[in-house]
């Protein structure tokens, strides 16, 4: 398929929606993913993503929109996680692991209990970017706007907390509050990503772009911007590959990201070698 085919592909309605969803998710996830990586809370982000499945199960059982259930449940779980992390750091790891599994199990059982419900579970586990409805795109735009506004206004505080929490606290930065806001933003970003790549693959898309960006950036701001651009690149390329070769889109996007990830590691190794020699 040549250039012609690609333009054709993005002209179809569902492909245009998919592309738009990918780009919108890329904004929030580049910014939040950066904060996740520098704060070393990848495990917490994973916990929120999987626990959110409990919310999807509950929503289906009670007949409310699954996305609303996921958002509500993930916000609650992130609240518990931030409280535990702040009061008992040693135990936080374990609690996050338990919430991770319990949320997942709750989701599965609630769907079992919903008689006659035969939802395509695969679409939550591995994403369904090609079936993103207009309403989701609107929600993604709202989340982007919220994340940009919050991180934009509290940038100095987020930078100081991520770099040295104790110094920030001594300067009067309200760490507890800020940490909860961060985890809530992670919850919202993660749920956007569930649409795109599914909850199993969320972590890869949240962490790979910032990980690559970290090697080349000298400020948190730059790292966020580069992560957003990398997200765009991975989503567009991934979508094109999946369309051309008829592959699952979420998994293809992740493979593209992984290819860049390994290339960046190799590049760094070579540069170290040349620089050192």
């Amino acid at each position, binding site marked *: 398929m040549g250039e012609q085919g690609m333009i054709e592909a993005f002209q179809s309605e569902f492909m245009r929606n998919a592309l738009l969803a990918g780009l919108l998710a890329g904004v929030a996830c580049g910014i939040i993913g950066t904060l996740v990586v520098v704060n070393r809370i990848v495990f917490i982000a994973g916990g929120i993503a999987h626990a959110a499945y409990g919310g999807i199960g509950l929503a289906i059982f009670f007949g409310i929109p699954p996305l609303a259930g996921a958002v509500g449940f993930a916000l609650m779980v992130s609240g518990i996680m931030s409280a535990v992390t702040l009061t008992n750091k040693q135990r936080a790891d374990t609690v996050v692991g338990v919430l991770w599994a319990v949320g997942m199990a709750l989701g599965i059982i609630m769907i079992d209990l919903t008689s006659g419900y035969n939802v395509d579970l695969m679409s939550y586990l591995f994403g369904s970017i090609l079936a993103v409805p207009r309403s989701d795109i609107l929600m993604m735009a709202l989340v982007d706007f919220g994340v940009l506004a919050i991180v934009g206004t509290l940038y100095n*505080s987020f930078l100081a907390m991520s*770099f040295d929490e104790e110094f920030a606290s001594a300067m009067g930065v309200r760490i507890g509050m800020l940490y909860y806001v961060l985890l809530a933003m992670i919850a919202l970003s993660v749920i956007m990503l569930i649409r795109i790549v599914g909850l199993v693959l969320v972590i890869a898309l949240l962490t790979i772009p910032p990980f690559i960006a970290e090697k080349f950036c*000298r400020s948190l701001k730059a790292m966020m911007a580069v992560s957003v651009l990398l997200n765009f690149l991975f989503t567009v390329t991934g979508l094109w590959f999946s369309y051309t070769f008829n592959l699952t889109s979420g998994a293809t996007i992740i493979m593209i990201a992984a290819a860049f990830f390994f290339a960046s590691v190799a590049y760094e190794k070579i540069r170290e070698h040349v620089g050192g020699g």
Partner: protein
Amino acid sequence: MSLSAIEMDNVSFFYNNHPVLMNVSLRVEEQDFLAIMGPNGSGKTTLLKIILGILNPARGSIRIFGKTPLEAAGMIGYVPQDTWLNKDFPVSVQDVALMGRLGRPGRDRRYTSDDRLLAAKVLQQVGMWDYRDRPIGKLSGGQRQRVLIARALTVEPKILLLDEPTSSVDAQFQTDLHSLLKELNDSITIVIVSHDVSVLSGYINSVACLNRTLYHHDSGELTEEMLNAAYQCPVDLIAHGQVPHRVLRKHDHENIDER
């Protein structure tokens, strides 16, 4: 009536039911230069974190110029121990120094040109101006320590707390640091914490020994009792007069030899 810079009254702190500080009372007057000595694990860092309001004591009260530590946020400059974990953090030397301005009102507003001028002045003071655009992870331990000192100074603090500030700096900077602190002491109160008696210099006007509880002497003298109580075995005994001098005490085993 003038308020003490720091006033701690019967402060106790527990970590997992394990007492770290027991009934510590301490009064530091404005423009004092206090050294708190004590072996590793004696609660020195915990004491500083309580003064800063990072940790809350289980019992007792603490006042900074009559205010609670929370109200006093932004009055204290803090130089933490250099135990660095995240070496890849994307932040430049200059941006770290600017973090000292976070205590000002409207903390998340853009840094003003005054903030930047102050950070520049302070980075020059510690000899790190030439490195201002360097990522923090690309510095040596000693250089990083200087940047952390600069960050504490951009606070324009009324009190400066330093936790083992000379642990990873070279001898030259140690001397520079001592004269810088002496100069700063004309206007601000300084508390320095260390397990290493070499931080004691002629500029210090008060010494305390900490080992879960505090042994404080108002003069710059370290008495034998204080040292005996804080350290298990008597170490160097330091005295200060107009001319600083150091008196080396005999060690226990030497005493035994004499018998």
